[in-house]
């Protein structure tokens, strides 16, 4: 151990669920750097709640692979950040520990579900943080809070120790104020881990370069169409114009399978979640189940009481989608739609190097604005396709609308993080000037 970092943030946005006032650190590439970790990533000895009351007091006896890597490079884990309960939300309002506020405008949400990590970085409490992205949970809050966030290729970062919400979709990824910092953090967390059978030995070791001469950028019509705030679309178009000035070419393209992406996404993630969350029964984690009752009654009571409304809704949706007689109609169909999305992306990315569009269809919502779950689900439309296709995607700040940040989303080929990081870096270094 090289030292201890004292950490006493002025957390007026409620970015943290847990903070470590004296965080030990070691030597290495991130020696002494304060890193915030989303609260669904297991940290040995530090409470890990996933933003849920059902995991209050749960202290993992082991580190997630990414946390071991951070510690191994000397980082100081200074706290666990707030999030939508189990990642189920786009605003961080479904947290069991109160909503996180957007540091840019405290009447607004920071986005979600990694809202705490984004707010902690945007408020300057930490230089970098880890988030997780199941359907946009890194990119959305990065866009809403005006920072950079990367969702890696599915399988490039080990999920070992990430408390699963939707295993087949989610990835841990870096969030920071600059592309360079995101790249630095990505290098540390992408080291191979054989404990995650879905991961690949494709470590990221790249120095960002602003040279994007003759980069081919695809502009899918679906990313600029119905449901997208025209002012957001315009801001993003002009950012892409700056990339053209820097030597990139743009090509119009189409991703027709996007029509089914959102439905497929919600069937898959709720199905997997219904299974993943079944283990939280009040026996081994969280508030204890009443022992004078029969076991099945006691655990039903615990689950009814300590899971939030959105989590209960998604567990029920997923349970229904997997039930006998409906499997083929929902889960089976969703897998077909998912394959189609993947094929569309592979086809388009055979013709262009990266796909560009807005990260979110709008700027940050006001707190409480998305009270209707369906309208909240619809706001994931531009981020969900990259998770279905398993391709990497980054959100980089590209201007404001009404003083609120807008994110430019760049989507790349499988294991081509380097290319989208270079494009984002070029925009950040030269474009926004």
């Amino acid at each position, binding site marked *: 151990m090289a030292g201890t970092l004292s950490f006493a943030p002025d957390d007026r946005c409620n970015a943290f669920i847990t903070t470590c006032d004296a965080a030990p650190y070691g030597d290495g590439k991130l020696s002494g750097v304060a890193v915030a970790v989303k609260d669904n990533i297991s940290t040995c000895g530090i409470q890990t709640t996933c933003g849920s009351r059902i995991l209050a007091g749960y202290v993992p006896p082991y580190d997630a692979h990414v946390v071991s890597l951070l510690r191994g490079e000397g980082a100081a884990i200074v706290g666990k950040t707030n999030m939508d309960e189990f990642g189920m939300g786009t605003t961080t309002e479904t947290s069991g520990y109160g909503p996180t506020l957007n540091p840019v405008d405290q009447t607004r949400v920071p986005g979600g579900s990694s809202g705490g990590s984004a707010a902690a970085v945007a408020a300057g409490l930490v230089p970098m943080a880890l988030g997780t992205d199941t359907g946009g949970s890194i990119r959305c809050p990065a866009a809403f809070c005006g920072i950079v966030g990367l969702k890696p290729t599915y399988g490039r970062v080990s999920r070992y120790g990430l408390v699963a919400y*939707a*295993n087949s979709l989610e990835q841990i990824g870096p969030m920071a104020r600059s592309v360079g910092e995101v790249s630095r953090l990505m290098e540390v967390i992408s080291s191979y881990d*054989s*404990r995650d059978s879905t991961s690949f030995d494709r470590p990221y070791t790249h120095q960002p370069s602003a040279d994007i001469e003759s980069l081919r950028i695809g502009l899918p019509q679906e990313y600029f169409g119905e449901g997208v705030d025209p002012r957001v679309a315009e801001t993003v178009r002009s950012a892409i114009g700056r990339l053209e000035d820097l030597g990139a070419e743009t090509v119009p393209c189409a991703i027709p399978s996007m029509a089914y992406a959102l439905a497929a996404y919600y069937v898959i993630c709720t199905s997997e979640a219904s299974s993943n969350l079944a283990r939280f029964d009040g*026996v*081994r984690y969280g508030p204890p189940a009443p022992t004078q009752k029969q076991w099945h009654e006691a655990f039903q009571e615990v689950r009814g009481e300590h899971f939030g409304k959105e989590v209960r809704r998604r567990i029920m949706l997923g349970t229904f989608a997997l039930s006998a007689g409906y*499997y083929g109609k929902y889960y089976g169909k969703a897998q077909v739609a998912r394959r189609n999305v993947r094929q569309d992306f592979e086809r388009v990315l055979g013709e262009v190097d990266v796909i560009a569009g807005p990260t979110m269809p709008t700027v940050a919502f006001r707190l409480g604005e998305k009270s209707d779950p369906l309208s909240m689900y619809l706001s994931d439309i531009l981020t969900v396709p990259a998770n279905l296709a398993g391709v990497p995607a980054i959100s980089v700040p590209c201007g404001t609308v009404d003083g609120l940040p807008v994110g430019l989303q760049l989507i790349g080929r499988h294991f081509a993080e380097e290319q989208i990081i270079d494009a984002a870096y070029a925009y950040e270094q030269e474009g926004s000037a």
Partner: protein
Amino acid sequence: MTVIIGLEIHVQLNTATKLFCSCSTDYRDDPPNTHCCPVCLGLPGALPRLNRKAVEYGLKVAKALNMEVPEESEFARKNYFYPDLPKAFQITQYDKPLSIRGVLEIEDDEGHEKLVRITRAHLEEDPGRLVHKGGGDRARYSLVDYNRSGIPLLEIVTEPDLRSPQEARRFLGRLRATLEYLGVFDGDKEGSLRVDANISIKGYERVEVKNISSYKGVEKALTFEVTRQRNLIRRGQPVTVRETRHFQEGRGVTTASRSKEEEHDYRYFPEPDLRPLSVAGWVEEIELPELPVARKNRFVEQYGISLNHARTLTGDLKIAEFFEKIASVDPVLAATWTADTLLGELNYRSMSIAAVPPGHFAGLLKLLKEDTITDKAAVQVLRTMLDSCAAGNECEQPAAIVEREGLARATGVDFAAIVRTVIAGNPQAVEDYRAGKKGALNFLVGQVMRETRGRADPRELGELVAACIETTEG
């Protein structure tokens, strides 16, 4: 009334580590929850990593049972709530099992060869174990031991091809032997084999009997169930609704389950944390050892022993290996004494053959072959020897027992004098013998044997007694 039986057999594969983590599987002598890690405890965030050895063992079984191995198989989640299941789902295989459509040869009730079809065999993880404190239904609380959680299981499902509880037991015996020959299973470990059975009387609905947790329990449970179902038919109340019953090992009966408990919708879906498994090509690389049927045939040919003895000796790998170590003394003598005497004596003492040093038993066979002791004395020596092994001491050498107990075939003893005394003392028996009652001779021989403490050969004694009576005046 034809009986129709199909079995679902769960066997623990004896890999060194668990199916999805590197915890040791050797937990039986250790305190609860000492063979656990985040993976087999189902801690949030832990991920399964497939044990290649378990797949290899599964493929060995598939090959030995002549099964087809599809190009790709897949793990799936079986979702249900039970306190011994730490993730609230079991990782198993559902619509893409490791292997399908095989056969195992057994002998039917008439001793004819018969092929039993195997539907499928797939890999899955064992749940933990509940310990109810306070006993049975009145337990005040239950404790969970996760040492067993994640032990690799192979679930083998048969077609409904078995026609009697005895046939079902023979099937299991042959299956167990096959698995032990393959080196993938140790049937001596407690709880290493668990069976669910589907049983019906032809023309009526079937009953599933769950919770049969031993090899011997299967015949018992099924015999009970056949009688129960036949009686229901006789009383005009046959089984018409599919039912699940639990076997109560202690009482030897099956009891109805509360039907609600069994109405599961397991919501199977592919396990997203594991990639599909491609085993194409792997099967060809697997080399099988000699299996029970082949060994049985070889024993008959190589050692010239009877088919029946060969069958008995090859029915258990340890016995077959034991026999091969002692056969050189005299194969037929060794086969006879192992199959007809030793196994019975072991069974009577609930001893495993592993407790008997082959050299000791070979020593006993040598004493017999050299005519140093009689058959009767040999049985006594064997019993004394086994008792010494069972007591946990070093096994006593047969020669030492013979020496100590003075059991060597008598030489220099005046048998004629003893015989004369016995004849003189049992005039009624002598008269009966003369009247043609063969049994009377055996009685007289027995009397002489008692006097000589078994040290003379009964056949020779018989001749001596008969000759003596003939020369004695009636």
